[in-house]
Structures are given as structure tokens and as C-alpha cells.
């Protein structure tokens, strides 16, 4: 029940706020923060109760839901554990960050945020394809409200673009899910799925495109800058911190283990797009006049690294990607929070409006510097560990040419260029008269940032607790993608026979396997 409690406690918070919002703004905020913190504290039980020595799903709960193969089946493994914790960590941080920034419709805002948390947690925990899809889609609704109601001037354009883009991918994924359903003995259960599947290339693409849009992988990224710029601060934090990770999570949960042969086949194309994304995102980020857009494009670059590592076929690369998902959530989340903080003071996000803020806001300057350095991958902070593992793993992994790694490594130079240039223009130089009255961070804002800084340093100096918990689960994926050659032979054999017969046979053998497992 632990996992269900974590997932649905925020939803309970939504109901509580709905019932009690007459008590006033402070009460609403208090309930939201309380629920957020409580969820985080309970979710720590996942960490302590998690057994790092096994790759199987843990804390599993399974109940029949809809007859015909749909079950309420949830659990965590070393891959989803950290994304669940990242979500439960960032949500209360966001609630605290939004404390004074919501002018109208506060209760609706907090309700959306909590509902969003339930949706995101569900996505990471679902072990049933149908359930996964339900959570995947349901999380769009609160995000739609967050951007569409509390967003900036062009919020409607941005939010419609965001939703339609995602839904176009979802439609493909739905087809993929149904196809798997029929090949899996009419069951949506993820744990019973095992390939090779019919039309695995097409199925792979159906899933991959949906996830690539979410990541976003170049060239599916243009919804992201618009969504970020228009979203309220915490919307951007959640969007960058967690939502994008649903794409990379989907790749490692579905695309790689279910269709290893197709993954192998499309690797050259995908890593080309990933490397283009790294360089392109960095170059475009460099010339952005708007702080939020700059950070948004930097996400395109960072997530390119993650995708590269995922397809590296190496343990170091994939673990690096997993870690980098968390790192990006922390660092980019923190960047959006910081941008939000100066936006609240100055009501501008344009770089030209700033300069010399270091003098007026030394605490802000220090924190901003640390987060900037984390983002450009300075050793000793979290970003370096992930990036280094991804690049070293990709170089050693043999999954693709080393030329890709050379170009990706060049992204490390560009990251320094766009971040330090931005930092210089905002923080250094002489202070403009209009900015003279800007106050430094207050106690609440420092409290918002401190836990993030703690993790930024912790992961940088001692990432072992993080890596050791994911090692076994990542190992399973690595084994699957490394065994592509024999599996390919098997598939070829199958194709040579009558497809219908082959399908029946696959279904039969799978059925037998399941029965055998059930007996055990």
C-alpha cells in the first residue's frame, strides 16, 4: 500500500483543498505544502525499503481493474525509484516557491500542482500499459491549466501547442500499446511482455516518437521553448524537472528492453539526432535574449546527452543517463526557480534588463553561480558525474562510432559559453539604476534553494548511494540490448514462416511461460 499511498496522497490533497478552500489563502497553501511534504516523507520509505540487490519490481501492488486484461499494477525498480523521489522532492519545493507568486485562483493552482504530482508518480510506477497510458494522458490536464490559466501573454498558443504535440505522440503510442496487447495474450501487463514482437520496428517507432516529443529530441523540440516561456515558474520547474524525464523514462522502460533489435537498428539515426540536439540546443541557447528561453534550449542540449547515453549499450552510459535525468531535474529546476525569483522582483526575463546584480544580491549570486556551474558540469557538482559517465560509457560502449562522442564532448565547451555569457550579462558589470532597489533572497527563498543545493553537491561528491540502487535494474536493460544479435536471428527465422502461425506460436509459448511462472 506504500506505493499507492505515495501516488494518491496528493490527489487527496486536491480534494481537501476543494473542500476547505473557504478557509483562505494561507490554509490552502498550508494544506498543499503539508500534503507535499508528507508525500515526500512517506516516499522516503521507498528508498529505505528498496532492496538494491535485485532487479525485480518491488513494493508491487496488483488488482484486477477492468476485465479483459487491464489491471492496477504498480511497482518500482532501480530505474523508476529516483524519478519517483525526484517528483516527490520537487513538488513541495515548487509549492513553497509559488507561495506569493499566484495572484488569482490560488486554490486551483495548488490543486493542479498536486493532481499533476499524482499523474507523474503514476506514470513512473505503472506496470500496466493501460494504466500507464491513463496516467500519461491525465497528467496533461493539470499542466494544461497551469500554463493556460497562470501563464504569460501567449499562454493559449503555448498550451495548445504543448498539448497537441504530446497528443500526436500519444496517439501513436496508443496504437503501439494495443498492438502489444494483442501479442501479449490480451494483457496489458508490462511484466509479462517479452519479445520478440511482430512488427517490432513499427512498434518501436510508435513508442519512440511519443517519447522523443516529450524528451524533447531534436527536431521535436519547438513546443518546449514556448511552453517554458509562457508557463509560470513552478510550471517550468515541473516541466523541465519531471515531465521531460517521462520521455527518457519511457525509452529505457519500453523502447530498449521490449524492442532491442529495433533499437539497435535505429541507433545511428537516434544518436545523430541526440548529438545534433546537444550542439544545436547549446548554440541556440547562446543567442537567446530571454532567460527562460535560454534555459529551455539548454534543456534540449542536456537531454541530448541523456538520449545518447541511453543508446550506448553500456552500463556506465545508461546509469549516467539515469543519473543525469535526476541531475537535470535538480539543476534546471533550480535555474527556473532562480529566474522566477528575479522575475518576481523585476517583472522581466530579458537579459538586457539586468547586469551587476551581484552587488545588490550576493546570496542570490552565490546560489546562481553554484547552479550555473552544476549545469555546465563542473567536477564536484552533480552534472559532471552524469555527463562524464554518459560520455565515457558511450566511448567505450561500441554501440556507435566514437565520432558521435567527439561531437557530444564539444557540447561541454558550448555549455560553458552560453551559461557563463548569460551569467556575466545578468550578474556582472555595473548595476542599472532601475535595478538598484532589488532585494536579495528572503528566508523562504533560501529554504527553497538549500535542499536542491544539498543534492547538487551530494551527487557530485558521493554519487554512490544513487548509483548503487539503480545498478541491478540498469544491468537488466544492458543485458537485453547487448544480446541483440542472437535475437535478431530468431526474428528472421520467424519472419520466414507464416506470420499468423508465428504469432500463434509466440502467443502459445508466452502463455506457457506465464503459466509456468504462475505455478512457481
Amino acid at each position, binding site marked *: 500500500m506504500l506505493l499507492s499511498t505515495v501516488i494518491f496522497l496528493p490527489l487527496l490533497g486536491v480534494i481537501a483543498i476543494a473542500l476547505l478552500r473557504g478557509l483562505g489563502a494561507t490554509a490552502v497553501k498550508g494544506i498543499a505544502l503539508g500534503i507535499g511534504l508528507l508525500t515526500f516523507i512517506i516516499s522516503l520509505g521507498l528508498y529505505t525499503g528498496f532492496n538494491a540487490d535485485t532487479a525485480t519490481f518491488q513494493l508491487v501492488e496488483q488488482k484486477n481493474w477492468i476485465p479483459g486484461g487491464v489491471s492496477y499494477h504498480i511497482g518500482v525498480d532501480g530505474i523508476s525509484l529516483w524519478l519517483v523521489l525526484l517528483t516527490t522532492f520537487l513538488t513541495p519545493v515548487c509549492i513553497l516557491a509559488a507561495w506569493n507568486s499566484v495572484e488569482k485562483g490560488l486554490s486551483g493552482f495548488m490543486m493542479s500542482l498536486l493532481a499533476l504530482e499524482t499523474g507523474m508518480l503514476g506514470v513512473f510506477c505503472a506496470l500496466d500499459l493501460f494504466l500507464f497510458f491513463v496516467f500519461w494522458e491525465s497528467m496533461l490536464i493539470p499542466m494544461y491549466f497551469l500554463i493556460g490559466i497562470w501563464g504569460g501573454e501567449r499562454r493559449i498558443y503555448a498550451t495548445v501547442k504543448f498539448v497537441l*504535440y504530446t497528443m500526436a505522440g500519444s496517439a501513436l503510442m496508443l496504437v503501439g500499446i494495443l498492438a502489444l496487447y494483442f501479442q501479449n495474450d490480451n494483457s496489458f501487463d508490462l511484466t509479462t511482455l517479452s519479445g520478440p514482437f511482430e512488427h517490432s520496428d513499427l512498434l518501436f517507432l510508435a513508442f519512440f516518437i511519443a517519447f522523443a516529443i516529450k524528451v524533447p529530441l531534436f527536431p521535436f523540440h519547438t513546443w518546449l521553448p514556448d511552453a517554458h516561456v509562457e508557463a509560470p515558474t513552478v510550471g517550468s520547474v515541473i516541466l523541465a524537472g519531471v515531465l521531460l524525464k517521462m520521455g527518457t523514462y519511457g525509452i529505457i522502460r519500453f523502447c530498449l528492453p521490449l524492442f532491442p533489435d529495433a533499437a539497435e537498428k535505429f541507433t545511428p539515426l537516434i544518436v545523430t539526432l541526440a548529438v545534433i540536439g546537444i550542439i544545436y540546443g547549446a*548554440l541556440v541557447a*547562446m543567442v*537567446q535574449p530571454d532567460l527562460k528561453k535560454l534555459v529551455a534550449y539548454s534543456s534540449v542540449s542536456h537531454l541530448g546527452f541523456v538520449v545518447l547515453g541511453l543508446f550506448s549499450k553500456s552500463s556506465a552510459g545508461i546509469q549516467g543517463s539515469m543519473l543525469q535525468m535526476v541531475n537535470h531535474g535538480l539543476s534546471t529546476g533550480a535555474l527556473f526557480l532562480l529566474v522566477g525569483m528575479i522575475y518576481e522582483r523585476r517583472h522581466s526575463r530579458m537579459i538586457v534588463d539586468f547586469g551587476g546584480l551581484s552587488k545588490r544580491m550576493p546570496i542570490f549570486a552565490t546560489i546562481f553561480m553554484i547552479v550555473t556551474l552544476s549545469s555546465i558540469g563542473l567536477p564536484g557538482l552533480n552534472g559532471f558525474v552524469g555527463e562524464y559517465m554518459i560520455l565515457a560509457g558511450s566511448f*567505450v560502449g561500441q554501440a556507435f562510432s566514437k565520432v558521435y562522442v567527439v561531437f557530444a564532448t564539444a557540447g561541454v565547451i558550448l555549455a*560553458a559559453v552560453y551559461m557563463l555569457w548569460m551569467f556575466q550579462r545578468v550578474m*556582472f558589470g555595473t548595476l542599472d539604476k532601475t535595478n538598484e532597489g532589488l532585494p536579495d533572497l528572503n528566508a523562504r527563498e533560501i529554504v527553497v534553494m538549500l535542499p536542491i543545493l544539498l543534492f547538487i553537491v551530494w551527487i557530485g561528491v558521493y554519487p554512490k548511494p544513487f548509483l548503487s540502487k539503480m545498478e541491478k535494474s540498469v544491468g537488466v536493460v544492458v543485458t537485453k540490448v547487448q544480446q541483440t544479435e542472437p535475437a535478431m536471428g530468431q526474428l528472421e527465422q520467424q519472419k520466414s514462416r507464416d506470420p499468423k502461425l508465428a504469432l500463434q506460436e509466440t502467443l502459445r509459448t508466452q502463455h506457457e511461460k506465464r503459466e509456468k511462472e504462475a505455478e512457481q
Partner: protein
Amino acid sequence: MSKELIVVLLVAPLVGFLINGLFGKWLKGNEKLSGWIGALAVLVSLVCSIIAFTSLNSGAAPLDETLYGWITGEGFAFNIGFRVDALTAVMLLVITGVGFLIHVYSIGYMHGDEGYTRYFAYLNLFVFAMLILVLGNNYLMMFVGWEGVGLCSYLLIGFWYEKQSATDAGKKAFIVNRIGDFGFLLGMFTLFAAFGTLDFTTIFDAAEAGNFQQVFGASTLVIATLLLFVGAIGKSAQIPLYVWLPDAMEGPTPVSALIHAATMVTAGVYMIARSAVLYNIAHTGEIVAWIGVLTAFFAATIALTQNDIKRILAYSTVSQLGYMFVGVGVGAYASGIFHLVTHAFFKGLMFLTAGSVMHAMANELDMRKMGGLKSKMPITHWTFLVGALAIAGFPFLSGFWSKDEILHSAWGGSPLIYGIGLITAFLTAFYMFRLIFVTFYGESRVEPEVASHLHESPSVMWVPLVLLAIPSALIGLLLGWGGHESWFHHFTKAVAGFSSEAHGEASGNVILFMVISSVVGLAGIAFAWTRYSKRVPSDEPTGALHRLLANKYYVDEVYNALIVQPVKNGSHFLLWQLVDNGIIDGIVNGVAALIRFVGGLLRRLQTGLVQVYIVSMVLGIVLFLAYYLFFT
């Protein structure tokens, strides 16, 4: 020597950083305390370094110990660990010794600065990072220190962050260094792919046994060492990545002395000496030596025409680093490191004396506005003179020994390299004494309001000058007496890869080489005397060559026109405006518009007139019937 000693050595400056960094607000009222906390932290490290050094010198075994697994998992283990051998010990003494004196000097120099505590926090952090760099027992840890010193360099160059030129210079330093790091990273990946580890001991043993994965066939080590060298080129400011170092003079002068002369910029030399085993096998040293000697010459020619005293020293540093690369490049690792040590003293000294001049001259740097400072600032003058004589290779001063060893070894490698090195030695003596004569001798050209305040620096500043001047004069004689049989060579003999030195086996007469070097140095000094003892450098360049040199070969302008501007404009117009907003979003919005358009067309069918619906129904039925009747 124990592990605990090394931990204390390393952590002391970190503690200093944390105290000044976190409690700077409360220390602000008492800047002396803040400064001495910083200096004391380094003193602790210095004492530990001396203990480690004496135990090594008395024959103790080098320490090589892993502290904990940093990034570990299936098939990879990157550890935090130390290695303290003779090479490390030498570096430790330089870093903490020169570092301590510069901290003390800074207490006076930075007096009254608004960012006093911040300065000492950064400086301590730098020492910490530099110690990691030389203490690590694997390449990744070296890289951690490497990036750490790069960060501190960035922060300290841009220390006066309200000044645009300072923050520009800091950013430039970081980015150019990152280009070098790009090579370092790829070099590390290659080594990791080949050896499955980044630990020095394992790599060197396996490399000597030829027992590793041939990632790039037979040229695996060639590629690895050259990629590492790219890192060294960035950090140690060699052609073509030297451009950041002259600009780095925007930082406070003690920073230039410590980071941009004595320690950080020599990290590249240290890295190659550390990897001596690999360079010996790969035979890539020749490329290192050539880059080194060309940089040495090239930078010296620029120094001939500059009028900013710190810039002259900066180009001189680039040039001297080139010598060090010649040393390690031709396989005379001990000689290269020896020059690193002597240079740390005399160049550190000269930067601090330049700081002393600036302190007295209200931050004036243009030597055309000085002259005759000798009488007003005697200690500064004498200590600077010692440094200049040392670098010019005046007989028996420190630079004489180390530079001569390098030139001598270069002769064994390639007479051409020796020749260029010798010409550079002449140029070095010339530009240094041009600086001396114009600044300290002749008529005073100091502006009257500045002249009235002209004074010798306080004792907290001049005592370190004297303490640096003594080793600048004597350390060469003490450590270098006997050439390749000297104490220094003896001490560093056991360092991996050092003993298989392939340099000139004392070919030719040692005394002859010394005489030639001395004559060349003295000739440079004499030539400078004839040109600048009475004259001041002209304001306008005379002739095309002079203009070319005065404008530093227009390298910055070329980089700007060929790299910076195209990347900036290309990213803005081509990538962002055209590809992103135009093409990709054009397609996205185009699809949306198309759907809307088609929907608009189809909408017209929904007229709401029942007659139209009935007619279309009937038509439809007729069409279906016709199809079934006639076509099936």
C-alpha cells in the same frame, strides 16, 4: 608519511575557504583576521608538504592510496585517491610555499578592497583545487583539480566584476580552457577504453608491458597522448590557445603571480611529466617540444613591443612555459620540472614586484608613465632586478641553471629547437631589461599628483618579495649544481618514466653550453641598455613589423572574425531564426493551419439544409449501387 597527513594537507585550504566563504559577512569588519585565516590555512598545508617531502627525501616509499570509490559500477571504477612521489612533492612545495607567501602579500595588497573576504575564499579554494590536481593518483582526479583551478581562475580574473574587461577576460579564460579540456576528456576516454581504468600505476605498468586494448590500432597511445596534450595547451597557454593568459592580467596582481605564473599554468607541464611513461612509448614528445619552442619564440616577440608591465610578464610566462614543454618534450622531464620550480619563484617574484609598483602608482601599468622608480622604491627595484637577472639567464642565478639544462637537452633532440630556444633566450633578456630600464631608471615621467604619493610598499608586502628573491637567486645553484647529476635529478629519478630520459646524453661540453647561454643572455641585457637606458618606447609603432608585434599578430582579431562572430551570427540567424522559428515551427504551425483549412472546407458541407443532406444521401446510395452492379 601517512594518509592522514595528506588529508590534512588537502583539507586545510578547504576549511579556510569555507570559513571565509560562509562567514565572510561577519569577518568583513576585521579584514586582517580574514586574510590571516587564509594564509594560515596554506601554512598548514606547507608544513604538511615539508613533512611529506623530508620523509620522501630520506628514502620513504611513495604513497599511493585510494580513499573511496567515487563513480563506480559494473565495469567501471573511478576512485578518489592520492599518489605522493617525488614529482608530487616538488609540486606541493611550490604550490604551498609560493602560495603561502602570496597569501601574506595579499593581506597588504588587497587592503581596503570591498571583496576582501571573498578574495581569500577564492584563493584558498584555488590552492585546494591545485592540490587535488597534483595529489590525484588517477587522471580523473587530476581532471577534477584541473577544472577546479580553472573555476578559481575564472572567479579571480573577474574578481572586480563591475569591470567589463575583467569579466570578459574571466569568461575567455574559462572557455578557451574548456577547448583544451575537450581534448583532455577525449584523451581520458581513450585511456579508459584502452586500459579499463584511469589509475596511473595500472596504466603505466600495462603500457610498459604493452598489455592493453588497441582502441585505435597501433596509434592508440599516440592519439591518447596528443589528446592529453591538447588539454595541456589550453591550461598552459600554448599556441594556439594562449590567448586567454595575457587577458587574465585583469585579475588582482597576486592572483597573476600565483595562478597565472607560478602554479596553475604549469599544470600542463606537470601532466606531461606525470604521463612520462606514455609519452616515452608513444614518441609524441617531439610535437610537444615543437609547440613549446614555437610558443616560446612567438610570445617573446610579442613581449618585445608591449608597454604594459603586467602584459610583458604575461607574454614572458607564455614564453617560459614553452621552454618547459621543450624540456618535457625532448624527454628531459626533470629539467622541465626544474624550470617549472625556478620559474615559479622568479616569475612569482616579478609579478609581486609589479604589484608593488602598481600599489605605489595608483594602479598605473604603462611603463612609459614611470621611469626613475629606483630611488623611490629601492626594495622593489632590487628584488625585481634579481627576478629579471634570473629569467635572463645571468650566470649562477636560478634561471641560468634550469634554462640551460633544457637547451642542452634540446640540442640532443634537435639542433633547430636549440637554435630557436637560444634566440628566444636573447629576446627574453632584452625585453626584461627594456622593462627594467624604462620603469626603474632614467628620468621620472610620473605624473605629479601620483609622484607625491610614491612610496615603498609596507612590510607585509616587501617581506614576501625578499623571501621570494632569495630562492630566485639561489635555488638553481642549490638544486641544479652538477647538471644531470644534480640533487634535483637525483631526487626525481624514481618518478615513473623519468629515468628513461632520451635527451642529449651530455653531448658536447656542458661548460661550453653554459658559456653560450650566458653570453646570449648578457648580450640581450646589453642591447636593451643601448636602446632603452635613455630612451622611452615610442607611442606609435614604427614600421610594419613593429605594428604587427604591437598588435600581437592580430590573433585575437582573427579568432574573433573567423570563430566568434560566425558562431554567434550563425546561431542567431541560421539556427534560431531560420531553422527553429522558420523551418521546424513553420512545419508545425503549417500542419495546424492545413488541418484548420481542410476543416474549414469540410465545414461548408454542414449547411443545415435537410434537402442538401437528402440529395447527397441519394447520390451516395446511387454511387454505391453503381459500383457494386458494374464493377464487382
